[in-house]
């Protein structure tokens, strides 16, 4: 928790993504700790997005009665990153030249 909050201060980040894809199981203590981290980051002025929650973890979280309603959750890190870009009013665009009509290249859809 401390290291995330410290990095938020150092980098001036407005959004933090917590990706827990590599976490196989979660107990109440870990879930509560995640929630505390999200709350602390919000107090400092940064939003948190949690991504990569496994089905088993989702079941555990609901069965344990942990309230994640106030937290943005996304299924993959890519989804979370897309949300973060949108919130920061940023977008990724292709630098490839747009081909003439009928060409195979079309501008990338916005994320």
């Amino acid at each position, binding site marked *: *928790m*401390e290291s995330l909050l410290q990095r938020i201060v150092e980098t001036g980040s*407005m959004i933090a993504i917590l990706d827990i894809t590599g976490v196989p199981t979660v107990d109440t203590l870990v879930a509560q700790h995640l929630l505390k981290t999200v*709350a602390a980051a919000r*107090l*400092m*002025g940064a939003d948190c997005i949690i991504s990569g929650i496994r089905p088993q973890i989702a079941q555990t979280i609901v069965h344990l009665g942990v309230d994640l309603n106030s937290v943005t959750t996304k299924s993959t890190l890519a989804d979370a990153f897309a949300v973060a870009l949108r919130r920061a009013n940023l977008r990724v665009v292709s630098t490839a030249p747009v081909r003439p009509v009928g060409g195979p290249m079309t501008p990338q859809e916005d994320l």
Partner: protein
Amino acid sequence: MSVERIPILKMGAFLLVSIQVDMHDRLALQLQEDLTTRIAETGAHGVLIDISALEMVDSFIGRMLGNIAGMSRVLDADTVVVGMRPAVAITLVELGMSLPGVRTALDVERGMALLASAAGERYASDHADGA
């Protein structure tokens, strides 16, 4: 003997409070009193509280921040708390005070932007009602 006070600066439609000293309980109560008076006097639409110099908080100070936000809300002003240190944030969360009614920002600049956008929305909604 004059009482120690925390200065409240007026910046346009907003009030700026920068806490640069260690908060003790009497100072906090004095601030609460002064701030509500100033909001009423000036008709400010936003209050920005900079706590970047605050190194320690207790439950009393935490509750005071929540109270100030609640009072400002009643007086038709938004509150943004900016520059909270990691240690302070952790303490407040561990105390079970996640200050749900308080808006937050990383620094004064972003806090001001937040207040300005809130003021813009307020203006838009006020004028939508009258139209």
